[in-house]
C-alpha cells in the first residue's frame, strides 16, 4: 500500500511563514505554563491536560490547513486550539469558567470549541471526536467544497474500536479526513507499548488508508507530511493517516506530579534537552538566518506580555449569570 504520497504543490510552493509557526509554538508553550501556574495557585477550577512538548504537531499540522478546514481535538487540546487561530484571552476565560470564554464557561478545558476557525471542539471521551471529524468529512463531500477535516487523536485512541469503524467508511467513501495521531508514548499512566499490538501504521494501511510516520518534534517535517496528506485529501484522494511521535513534558494532567512509577526523570530530561520542538525550530531559524537571537528574544518578551495580559483579562472577567445554567440545552 502506498505509504508515501506524492509531494503536492502546496508543499513544493513558497511554503509557510516559519517565523509565524515558531511564534505559535512559543505561544502554546507559554500558554500551558500559565495554565499550570493557575492550577498550582488554585485559580483554575478542575484539571487540565497540558500539551507542552507537543507544539510541533499542533503547529505543523494546522500550518498546512486553511481557516475553513475543520479540526476536532482531544482532552489535550489547548495547542490544537491555539494553532488553529484561537485567542489566548478567550481560552483562559473558558478555562476559568468565565462568561467571556469560548463556550461561555460551560465547556472548560476539555470542551473548548471555536467554530469560527473550524475547531469543532475538544473532547473528553478518548476517540470521541473521531465520528465527528469523519462526519464533517462526509458533510464536505456532500456539500462539494474542497475543505478537509482533521481528527487529532492520542495514541490511546488506537484502543477505541470506533477509530476502525470510521476509517473504514472514510476509505470506502473517499472522505477528506486526516487522522493525526499524537503518539506521546503514554496513555495516562500506561506505556503505549503495553497497549498497542503490532504497528500503528499497519492499522490505517489495513483499511486502505495511506499512512505516514513523522517526527513530531520537527515542525517542518510535520508540516511537510501534513501538506502532502492535505493535498491528497483535498484533491479527492480520500483519507490519510499521520502518526506523529512526540512527548508530553508534564504529567497526564496538571495534578500528575509523581510520575516515577511509569516513566523516568531521565526520559523526561532527554526529550526536554534534545528533542524540544521549539529549541529545534529556533536553531534552524537562526542557522537559516531567518531570525537572530535578539529578535527571537524580543518575540519571547512580546508573547510573554501578551499571555500575561490574557491571564489578567480572564482573571478579571465575570462569571456567567446563574440563568445561563439552563440555556443552550436545546438549539
Amino acid at each position, binding site marked *: 500500500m502506498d505509504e508515501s504520497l506524492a509531494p503536492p504543490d502546496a508543499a513544493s510552493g513558497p511554503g509557510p511563514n516559519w517565523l509565524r509557526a515558531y511564534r505559535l509554538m512559543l505561544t502554546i508553550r507559554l500558554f500551558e505554563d500559565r495554565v499550570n501556574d493557575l492550577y498550582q495557585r488554585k485559580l483554575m477550577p478542575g484539571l487540565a491536560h497540558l500539551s507542552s512538548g507537543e507544539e510541533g504537531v499542533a503547529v505543523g499540522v494546522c500550518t498546512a490547513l486553511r481557516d475553513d478546514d475543520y479540526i476536532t481535538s482531544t482532552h489535550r487540546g489547548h495547542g490544537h486550539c491555539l494553532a488553529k487561530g484561537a485567542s489566548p484571552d478567550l481560552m483562559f476565560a473558558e478555562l476559568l469558567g468565565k462568561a467571556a470564554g469560548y463556550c461561555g464557561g460551560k465547556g472548560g478545558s476539555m470542551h473548548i470549541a471555536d467554530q469560527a476557525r473550524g475547531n469543532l471542539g475538544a473532547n473528553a471521551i478518548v476517540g470521541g471526536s473521531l465520528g465527528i471529524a469523519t*462526519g464533517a468529512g462526509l458533510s464536505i463531500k*456532500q456539500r462539494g467544497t474542497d475543505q478537509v477535516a482533521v481528527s487529532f487523536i492520542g495514541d490511546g485512541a488506537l484502543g477505541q*474500536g470506533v477509530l476502525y469503524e470510521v476509517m473504514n467508511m472514510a476509505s470506502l467513501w473517499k472522505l477528506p479526513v486526516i487522522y493525526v495521531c499524537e503518539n506521546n508514548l503514554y496513555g495516562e499512566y500506561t506505556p503505549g507499548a503495553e497497549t498497542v499490538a503490532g504497528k500503528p501504521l499497519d492499522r490505517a494501511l489495513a483499511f486502505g488508508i495511506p499512512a505516514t510516520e513523522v517526527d513530531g518534534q520537527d515542525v517542518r517535517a510535520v508540516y511537510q507530511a501534513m501538506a502532502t496528506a492535505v493535498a491528497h485529501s483535498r484533491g479527492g484522494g480520500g483519507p490519510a493517516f499521520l502518526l506523529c511521535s512526540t512527548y508530553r513534558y508534564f504529567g497526564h494532567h496538571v495534578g500528575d506530579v509523581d510520575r516515577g512509577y511509569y516513566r523516568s526523570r531521565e526520559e523526561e530530561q532527554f526529550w526536554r534537552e534534545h528533542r524540544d520542538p521549539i529549541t529545534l525550530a529556533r536553531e534552524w531559524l537562526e542557522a537559516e538566518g531567518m531570525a537572530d537571537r535578539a529578535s527571537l528574544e524580543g518575540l519571547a518578551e512580546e508573547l510573554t506580555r501578551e499571555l500575561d495580559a490574557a491571564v489578567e483579562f480572564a482573571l478579571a472577567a465575570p462569571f456567567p449569570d446563574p440563568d445561563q445554567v439552563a*440555556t443552550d440545552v436545546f*438549539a
Partner: protein
Amino acid sequence: MSSPDSMATDEWRELTMAQAIREAIAEEMRRDESVFVIGEDVAEAGTPFKVLSGLVEEFGTDRVLDTPISEPGFTGMGVGAAMTGRRPVVDIMFGDFLGLVMDQVANQAAKVHYMSGGKLSVPLTIRTTMGATRRSAAQHSQSLHAWVSHIPGLKVVLPSTPYDAKGLMKSAIRDNSPVVFFEDKMNYQQRGRVPVAEYTIPLGLADIKRPGKDVTLIATSSMVLVALEAAEVLAQEGIECEVVDPRTTVPLDRDALIESVRRTTRAVVIDEGHRSYGVGAELAAVVAEGAFYYLDAPVRRLGAMDVPIPFSPVLEDLTVPTAEGLAATVRELCRRK
C-alpha cells in the same frame, strides 16, 4: 390543531405508519437538500421493514447511504455532519442497538450545543424501533426510550398513529436539536387517516386520543392502541376512560397530563418499556405529584415485565401490557371510591 378531525383540510387518505414515515422523510428531503439518510440496508433494501423503500430511487445513493455494520461510527458521523451544515437522519435498525451508540448519542450529540455555549448545534434525527411480541427474543425486542429520555439535550418522540408519525417526523427533521424517534415495529402496517396537505406537529404537545371523565389512561406509542381497546371495552361497562398520548417524552407536556388527571381523579400509565425505572415511572411521578390533591386512587403503572424478553410465544405474550390487563387494572381502580 393536533387531531386529524380538526385539520383545516378535507382531503385525506389512509396510510400505514410506514408510509407516513417514508412520506415525511421524502418531503423533507425534497424541501431541504441538506437532509440525508444513513444506516444499514437503508438504500436498495429500504430497511428490513421496508420503511424507506423508494427513497434511494428518488434521491440516489449520495443521500441514502448504506453503511457497514458500524453503529457507533455512523452515528458519530451523523453528529459531525449535523455540526457542519447537514441534517442527517440516522437509522438504528433495532432499538436494542442503542446500547452501541449511547456514547455518541448521550455524550456527543446531546451535549455539543450546551458544551459549546450554544455555538455549535446538532440537527440530527435518529430513527429507531421498539416493541416486542415479534418473536425476536431478548436482543431484538426492547423498548429503550427511557435511556435517551433521561439525557438532557435530546428530544424523544413516540408516535402512535400514522398522522402523528408524519407530522412529528417532519418536526424532528427540522428541529435544530438531536431527536430520537422511536417506531414500534409491530405497528408499521397500522393504517390511519393522513391529510394530503402538508402539516407538521410541534414536539411537546400531548394529544387526547379519546375523551373521558372517569379515569385517565396515559399511554405511549403502541400502548395507545392498547389503551383505546381497553377504553372501548370499559365504555360498555360505564367507565369513561380518557386516553392521553404525550407523543414526546421530551419535551413532556406535563400540564396536559396533570390537567386531565385532575379532572378524572384517577390515572393509569401504560408504556412498553420495562416497568421499573422506565418512562412510566416519570409519567406516574409527574401526575401523582401534580394532581395529588385531586387523586381518588393511587396512580397505577403498566409496563413490560422486568425480565429479558423471552423467545417462546407463550412466555413473551406474558411480558407486555394487554388491553385485558389494563381493563382489569382500571376496574380495580374505579371500584375504589
